[in-house]
């Protein structure tokens, strides 16, 4: 096989892996949008906040250390412990649940039945607030996140592909793990939504508030649950991105890449978020590989958005979104 084709295949596989990470962020958007009609601009920041909190807890950082030291003139920075990743993750999930409860109780509960644009504005405010809170709690420096997932080139794939094609594929172990974990997460979410009482209640609330109340569903409970799940998905996304490129504040910008993913996949479809993420991931890598050199590169910055624009023109509901029907 010619080298160009083999290299293209490798790019394709790496694109799939990158797409999984986009899909993970997009998934959080879809969950909240489906259940409450809120487009949660803060989803990317939630991923950042979750990752910061996880690192902070694992490394025994004192939250608000700078603030405490400035006010009381103390010198505290660390509790002096190092927790295993699993304990850290469980505690972080707890933090995200509390956060979900706070978001619902302090903000969303008071905005029920408001226009979507108002809810959207509220989440923009939430995004900036959480970014500031994350900074204040854990500091703005880039942190290394190691939850014990294997990193580096996968030797088996390298050897096998070398034996077959005479060209070893470079696939990162971390990407493989991200794919496996994302798959498990999606299956778990599907099971939750289809087979559990809470999942049914969630779908009911997404459909009609009044009717949901009349069959005895507590809207507040469902909303806290949805924000908690979105927080959990954000944590998973945060771990993957954090492990790949360090926990830094530019992480919140990956939320922007989730937008074209959603336009492709549709705002209301979980499979859509996955497929959309994969298409964007593969598309931008292959485009950069094939067309990039002709136009001077850096196509990855805009490819996704142009693709999304095309979709908005020709298929505004996305690949899997609910069809937009206006009755006159």
């Amino acid at each position, binding site marked *: 096989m010619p080298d160009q084709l083999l290299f293209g295949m490798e790019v394709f596989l790496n694109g799939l892996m990158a797409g999984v990470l986009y899909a993970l962020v997009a998934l959080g958007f879809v969950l909240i949008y489906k259940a409450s009609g809120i487009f949660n601009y803060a989803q990317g920041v939630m991923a950042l906040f979750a990752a910061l909190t996880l690192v902070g807890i694992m490394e025994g950082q004192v939250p608000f250390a700078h603030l405490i030291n400035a006010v009381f003139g103390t010198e505290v920075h660390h509790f002096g412990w190092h927790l295993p990743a699993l304990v850290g993750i469980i505690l972080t999930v707890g933090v995200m649940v509390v956060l979900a409860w706070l978001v619902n109780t302090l903000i969303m509960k008071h905005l029920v039945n408001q226009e979507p644009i108002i809810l959207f504005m509220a989440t923009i405010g939430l995004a900036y607030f959480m970014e500031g809170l994350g900074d204040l709690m854990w500091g703005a420096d880039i942190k290394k996140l190691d939850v014990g997932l294997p990193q580096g080139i996968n030797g088996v794939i390298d050897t096998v592909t070398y034996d077959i094609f005479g060209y070893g594929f470079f696939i990162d172990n971390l990407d493989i793990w991200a794919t496996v974990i994302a798959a498990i997460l999606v299956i778990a979410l599907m099971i939750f939504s289809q087979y559990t009482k809470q999942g049914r209640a969630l779908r009911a609330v997404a*459909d009609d508030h009044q009717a949901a109340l*009349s069959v005895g569903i507590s809207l507040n409970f469902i909303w806290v649950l949805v924000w908690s799940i979105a927080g959990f998905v954000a944590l998973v996304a945060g771990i993957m991105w954090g492990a790949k490129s360090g926990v830094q504040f530019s992480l919140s910008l990956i939320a922007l890449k989730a937008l074209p993913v959603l336009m492709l996949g549709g705002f209301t479809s979980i499979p859509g978020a996955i497929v959309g993420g994969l298409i964007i991931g593969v598309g931008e890598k292959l485009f950069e590989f094939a067309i990039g050199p002709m136009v001077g590169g850096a196509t990855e910055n805009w490819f996704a958005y142009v693709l999304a624009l095309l979709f908005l023109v020709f298929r505004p509901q996305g690949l899997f979104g609910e069809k937009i029907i206006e009755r006159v």
Partner: protein
Amino acid sequence: MLDATQDGYTTADGRKIGGVVMEMKNITLRFGGVVAIKDISFDIREGEIRAIIGPNGAGKSSMLNVISGFYVPQEGEVLYKGKPRPQMKPYQVARQGIARTFQNIALFEGMTVLDNVMTGRLNKMKTNMFQQGLWKGAAEREEVENREVVEKVIDFLEIQNIRKTPVARLPYGLKKRVELARALAAEPSLLLLDEPMAGMNVEEKEDMSRFILDVNDEFGTTIALIEHDMGVVMDLSDRVVVMDYGKKIGDGTPDEVRSNQDVIDAYLGVAHD
């Protein structure tokens, strides 16, 4: 008229009506300066079909919303099964065994008929999320039991052939029936129907009337309903409350109400001089 201390009564067609299930005491509901309900008291007895009627804007729907917890009255007391009911959210009222339908149909449009009716059973499920996710043992048995109740209701209301159809595709009359099925699936001790016949043609009205009577007869369900169609109300109900401009102007059997001068005036209008 009956007083609340009585144990019950026997209807003209020989059905035994039991004690008081729901009692409204001096209910007053205001929206700002508008008095929607003014000092109304009445009761609903076990096993009866109780109608609330009145001209447009009389406050009937408001009254139903007070019973189901969607509105909180400023004054008065709600007694459920003999005990004063504290202020509750609508979902808590539903969990106490009060199911309802809506005037403008509130169904889960994206779900199938079967899924819609199954939501009526949500609060009967006791196993936890993880058991249900694994779909084994207790969770599976529970699902099967609840499914049986639901299938019975679906059979009863003759909607077997549309079980798997998404609700959004159904015509209006069938949607109303699905909504009734969902309410029935909860096996309520009090069923509230907000204009179950609104917007239906004659045939659909007859069907719905038959179902309401059958539900009451077969399951002994206590039903309180609001309706505009006087003919339907008089045929269906055991006792009728008549409201006008937020006030109660009549209460009694259909015959008593029909011969009540205030009621006749409210419906036919009266010369102001």
